[in-house]
């Protein structure tokens, strides 16, 4: 298979696997309803605590929620392969790894971005926030970038999932850490120093800040630095995840641990 076909077909396969979640009974509650309620929850706490504007919380939470479709789904896809014992088959194919994994990531990123965008639109509409029309396209870009960044983290989480049995717990902790540290609901200035420093190395931190500035009317060039930082962070996590998977794959060939449940 050429790399391009691996990329595309692998992507579709991954999407189908993702489609366990596509039953409307699961998709609607998890991808459409819950993020909006998360936004509303924190926006109202924000109003009660009188800290930031509604827009602050809408953007923060809409982007943070991509962690669910991106980190969970990516981790799930890889773990799912292992569960069905197909991971060994996939890794053994002569197909080149990078198109394979990038292909698998693509549907996850798209799904994550759509989830985020939907939550942003609906949550924003309910709370009555305004975003300049000129900001829509750059915002869309930022959303996709955040989704890609989280997917990179998801890949790392998937790799770690091989070593740790409790992937569900792990992913929930990742979700929680992102919720607390990345300036989602508390501006980095209001966080203790060590937390805001740590946040710089996490996905979403830069992307959320960029998105907020864009929504307030900043131009794309103004936030270029932040966007670049976000892309870099995401890429690094993705590479780390990929490297770990390759290392585990090699190790498993020696120790026959790939299929160990």
């Amino acid at each position, binding site marked *: 298979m050429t790399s391009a076909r691996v990329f595309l077909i692998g992507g579709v396969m991954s999407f189908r696997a993702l489609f366990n979640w596509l039953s409307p009974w699961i998709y609607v509650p998890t991808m459409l309803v*819950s993020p909006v309620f*998360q936004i509303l929850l924190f926006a109202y706490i924000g109003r009660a605590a009188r800290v930031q504007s509604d827009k602050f919380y809408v953007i923060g939470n809409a982007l943070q929620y991509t962690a669910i479709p991106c980190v969970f789904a990516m981790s799930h896809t890889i773990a799912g392969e292992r569960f069905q014992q197909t991971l060994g088959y996939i890794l053994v194919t002569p197909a080149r790894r990078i198109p394979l994994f990038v292909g698998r990531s693509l549907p996850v990123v798209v799904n994550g971005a759509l989830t985020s965008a939907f939550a942003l639109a609906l949550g924003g509409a309910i709370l009555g926030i305004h975003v300049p029309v000129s900001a829509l396209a750059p915002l869309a870009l930022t959303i996709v970038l955040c989704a890609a960044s989280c997917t990179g983290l998801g890949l790392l989480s998937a790799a770690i999932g091989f070593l740790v049995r409790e992937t569900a717990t792990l992913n929930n902790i990742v979700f929680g850490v992102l919720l607390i540290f990345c300036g989602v*609901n508390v501006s980095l200035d209001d966080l203790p120093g060590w937390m805001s420093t740590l946040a710089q190395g996490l996905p979403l931190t830069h992307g959320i800040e960029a998105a907020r500035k864009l929504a307030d009317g900043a131009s794309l060039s103004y936030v270029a630095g932040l966007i670049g930082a976000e892309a870099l962070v995401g890429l690094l996590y993705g590479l780390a995840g990929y490297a770990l998977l390759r290392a585990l794959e090699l190790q498993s060939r020696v120790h026959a641990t790939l299929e160990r449940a």
Partner: protein
Amino acid sequence: MKSARLLVIGWFFQLKMLSRSSFNGILGILYPLFFATVAFLMYRAGSPNALLYASLGASVMGVWSAVSTSAGSAMQRERWQGTLELLVSAPAHFSLVMLPVTVAMSTIGLYSMAATLLWGWLLFGIDLHVAHPLLFCVSIVVTVVSIGVTGFLMAVAFVRYRTAWALGNLFEYPVWLVAGFLVPISLFPGWVRPISWLLAPTWGMNAIRESALGGTPLPDVGLCAAIGVGCLVLGIAVTGTVLRSARARATLALT
């Protein structure tokens, strides 16, 4: 009374089983704790007086989560274990059998409650002074039981759905929001308030706050209990229908 005995013993054994399952344990405590932490950070930055208010509210979040995420699939689980048939073919009324299951779930939520209060005290210096200790305990008990009863209603109402767990998850955030755990209900638009008033956790939460901060918790306790009874009656009615249908159409796969 036989029924009371059955409820207590059923609850005791279900609690024993839940305590021995590590899976939900850590997550059940951690997950609400993340949200509580964010809420504390937000209140600390904006209105530090409200921290105790937030702490009490955040502690009840875990009780609700313990139920909403697992009550919906409670009957499914019995079926997988092969025990559903035995429960249905027992002479005891099925509600008396199922109710202890969900009340045990909400009881386990007490771990989360304690953890959240402790966390708030340790990391944010939120001191918990309780004005009326006895009423505080009563309020907690009534809240936990009524949340358990709400879970019972979910368990029998969702029994047809194989994805019951997702449906249960659907109710997690909305109840956190609307029952006023972290936010005063007065902030919501007018049309939301009747929805809050219909939920037992709303009144339970009020009662817990009133007894801690020094108010009049009894009317709230009463309302919480009353709504709980309403859920119970509704749940029993639904159980009757569901079981009759299952026996006639063999859909519950009791076999």
